[in-house]
Structure formats: structure tokens, C-alpha cells
């Protein structure tokens, strides 16, 4: 199984600022996924980050708002830009289990925008 470390675990930010969330995996993975979990709701995929290429964003999410970096096979960052209170959510990164359909999830970053 993969061990995923996310930083920060939580943060309170002022509106209009940006926050970068880091995701570190203890093994090399081709694909990493970023999800958002709004209060009281389920997880929604933001984007898929492949090493060496641009991230692929889901409908409703854009690169200017959620820029993603994927500099190597064990690390990715998600930035939440120009934040508003509507961005208050838990953000989780996820990696697939190699060769299997299941996935592992980080513990999430709980973001509150005030």
C-alpha cells in the first residue's frame, strides 16, 4: 500500500490569498488525483495530475483557480488561488494502487477561508 502525506493538515486563510497544498507519496506513481470535499458533501474530482504533462481538469474546475504541479513521480501540489469562503473545503490527494482499481487517499487538508 502507498503512504500519502499531505501538508498542511489544516489552514485558515484570508479571502483573496492563495494556499498551496503538498502531497508526497512514498512510492512512484504515474497518476495522482486531487479531490474536493465541500462541507457536508461528497468528494468531487478536481483534476488528474500526470508527471510530465499538464493536469487534466474536470468540468467546473480551471487551471487558473487550481494550478497543479507534478515535478516528479512522488510529489504534487495543488494551489487554491484567490480564495473565497466558497473554497472552504477538505482537499484530498489520491493515488491508485498499482495494477489494481482501488485508490489510496491522503488525510486531507481542511481549508477555511474567512
Amino acid at each position, binding site marked *: 500500500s502507498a503512504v500519502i502525506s499531505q501538508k498542511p493538515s489544516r489552514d485558515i486563510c484570508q479571502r483573496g490569498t492563495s494556499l498551496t497544498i503538498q502531497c508526497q507519496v512514498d512510492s512512484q506513481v504515474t497518476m495522482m488525483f486531487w479531490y474536493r470535499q465541500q462541507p457536508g*458533501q461528497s*468528494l468531487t474530482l478536481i483534476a488528474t495530475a500526470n508527471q510530465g504533462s499538464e493536469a487534466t481538469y474536470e468540468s467546473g474546475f480551471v487551471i487558473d483557480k487550481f494550478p497543479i504541479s507534478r515535478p516528479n513521480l512522488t510529489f504534487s501540489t495543488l494551489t487554491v488561488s484567490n480564495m473565497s469562503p466558497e473554497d472552504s473545503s477538505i482537499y*484530498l490527494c489520491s493515488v491508485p494502487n498499482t495494477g489494481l*482499481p482501488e485508490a*489510496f487517499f*491522503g488525510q486531507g487538508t481542511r481549508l477555511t477561508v474567512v
Partner: protein
Amino acid sequence: AQSVTQPDIHITVSEGASLELRCNYSYGATPYLFWYVQSPGQGLQLLLKYFSGDTLVQGIKGFEAEFKRSQSSFNLRKPSVHWSDAAEYFCAASASTGNQFYFGTGTSLTVIP
């Protein structure tokens, strides 16, 4: 379009009672199915998964789930609930290896003494 539905937003059970959490999916073909649990302040932990074969799958912490193709369901069960089972439970589906997951809206479980 692919979707996963969890009809029950919140369930309360007494400790020691049995539990069943419902999950229905809508997919073009039979997807891979999962149940995850999220305890307060924690990430998602995989309880069990269904890929193919035996439709009754066993998971960790005494949970099991049954896949019923005719009903497009994958309900989670536990014969005797413990107070530590109080958490948010998510049903999820994936079309293939390495693909994105589609999650249900979650069921919040409260266990009363």
C-alpha cells in the same frame, strides 16, 4: 453518466445492533465498487472492494458487502455495530484501473449506547 447514490444521509443505530448502508450505482458496465470510511479528522480508509467473482465480499473491521447486479446495488453490512464504527461512509465506483472514482454523497453513522 456514471453516478453513485447513497439514499441515506444519516443513520443512527444502537451499539450491538446490525447495520446496512445502501448504495446504488449507475454505470454503462459493471464498475469496480468500494466502500470507504472517514472518521472525524481522518482521511479515507478502504473497507472493502468488489472487482468480480463472489458477490459477497468481506472487508476489514467485520464489514461485508453484497453486489447485486439486478439491483445495481452494493450494500454494506455489519452484524453488530461497535461505538467506534461511528463515522462517515462513502460508496465509490471506478470504471477501470487507475481511473477516477465517483463517490456517493456519504452516509453519516451515529452509534448510541
